């Protein structure tokens, strides 16, 4: 990396005036430094000597005071907007949580609140309860999303659609600001779907507007399809897979409990063809370890010389790997290309992913359970 004292001084002047947090400040400096180095390199390549190139590149950036003022104005404006949006979201979420808490609290509301504050570990307990209430609110919305409705609108304004959803799902409905231009107050919404599961109806109808939905903090939020895979918009889903795990253990008893090499085995359910939630059909046969096929056996032990550490194959492992291989493979952290997370604990499948991927996983599990049982 080039270090030029003049540019360092210029950057310090800008940084001092911006007074950003450390991470934000470092990012901004790295971006400007990169630009500066490319500008100097290009000038040197065109025949300018390096000291002159540095001077020209700094001149091109302009006066540090002016740049800092411009950046400060923009960043302040962005921060204000972010705070307003977050404030609105928090206010809505707190409102929903309070309302749901009032209805769902097991004890009389007065006692519950008093108990929570009088407890020694009150803050931790309260946080857990809040989370639990939000999860209940999310679960309630997801349950209502399963019901069948007539989703019919003709050139309707968005307000009417939101009112309808809000009433059907008994929750607040928000439209993300990123959808401005695609789905906003000027949009005329049309949809003609009869007796369709509400979740599918919303997803299908929003698709032409480059939008979809998520359920988060007890609120249904309409977001851009581009943002769907952002970690910020992923949410937690808990699915009971006790039956499926039992069926997998039964059907795959020759493999379950056996050692396997993670790097050599193609992990996946074998023997049956099952229609995946995404619509594809998979049929992955069990393979012998590649190492056994390729590596020469050790004469004394009879095992390959390059054998790698092995672990025991479990029904949970088979299930989670099959899901990440079949349902939106690019969306999972495990495959290295996405942000979605998956784990299986005590017969519960835990997903942290987008609403549509979670919905595909649920469909797939139903198909899988049916196929394995038959």
């Amino acid at each position, binding site marked *: 990396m080039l270090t030029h004292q003049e540019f360092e001084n210029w950057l310090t002047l800008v940084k001092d005036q911006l007074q950003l947090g450390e991470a934000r400040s470092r990012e901004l400096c*790295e971006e400007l430094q990169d630009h500066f180095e490319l500008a100097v390199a290009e000038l040197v390549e065109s025949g300018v000597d390096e000291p002159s190139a540095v001077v020209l590149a700094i001149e091109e950036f302009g006066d540090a005071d002016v740049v800092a003022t411009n950046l400060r104005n923009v960043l302040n404006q962005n921060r204000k907007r972010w705070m307003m949006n977050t404030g609105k979201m928090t206010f809505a979420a707190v409102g929903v949580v309070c309302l749901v808490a009032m209805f769902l609290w097991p004890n009389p509301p007065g006692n519950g609140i008093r108990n929570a504050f009088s407890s020694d570990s009150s803050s931790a307990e309260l946080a857990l309860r809040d989370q639990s209430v939000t999860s209940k609110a999310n679960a309630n919305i997801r349950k209502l999303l399963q019901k069948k409705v007539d989703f019919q609108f003709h050139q309707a304004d968005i307000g009417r659609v939101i009112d309808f959803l809000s009433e059907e799902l008994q929750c607040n409905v928000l439209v993300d600001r990123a959808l*401005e231009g695609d789905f906003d107050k000027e949009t005329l919404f049309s949809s003609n779907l009869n007796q369709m599961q509400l979740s599918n109806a919303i997803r299908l109808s929003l698709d032409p507007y480059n939008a979809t939905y998520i359920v988060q903090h007890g609120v249904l939020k309409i977001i851009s399809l581009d943002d769907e895979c952002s970690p910020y918009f992923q949410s937690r889903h808990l699915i009971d897979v006790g039956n499926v795990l039992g069926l997998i253990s039964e059907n795959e008893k020759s493999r379950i409990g056996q050692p396997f090499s993670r790097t050599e085995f193609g992990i996946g359910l074998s023997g049956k063809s099952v229609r995946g939630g995404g619509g594809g059909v998979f049929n992955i046969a069990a393979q012998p370890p590649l190492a056994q096929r390729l590596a020469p056996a050790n004469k004394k032990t009879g095992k390959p010389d390059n054998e790698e550490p092995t672990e025991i194959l479990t029904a949970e492992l088979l299930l989670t790997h099959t899901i990440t291989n079949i349902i939106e493979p690019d969306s999972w952290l495990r495959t290295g290309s996405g942000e979605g997370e998956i784990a299986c604990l005590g017969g519960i499948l835990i997903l942290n992913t987008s609403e549509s991927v979670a919905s595909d996983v649920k469909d797939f599990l139903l198909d899988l359970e049916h196929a394995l049982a038959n």
Partner: protein
Amino acid sequence: MAKKTDKFESDLLRGSLDLMVLAILDQEDQYGYLIQKQIREATEGKVTMGAGTMYPLLHRLEGDKLIRSRWDDSSGRKRKWYSLTAAGKKRLAQRASQWNQYAECMAQLMQGWFEPVASAKKQIRLNKKTT
């Protein structure tokens, strides 16, 4: 008649820099230096947006959610790349349409002074062929 290398007046440019950046990012993802270079080259040096102007503009467009950024170091160098969002595409389409209409109105009003839009289009086609 202005010479080819003459720079545009800054008040003529006001309001169009956003559109230039959006149009460039519509073609492919870019980082700051490349955006600046493309504007300079596409306008044959008539528009030179200084880095001190461009970065506040990029951060503003990002705040407006018209573009998004990501850090990438796959080229061996950590670099911030910008891409257009769906809202950015929509805004670009709206503004481009307004600009077309505006240019046609100006052509109508400034007959005799205004180089026909058709010849500008022809020039763009020729430039594309040569590159």
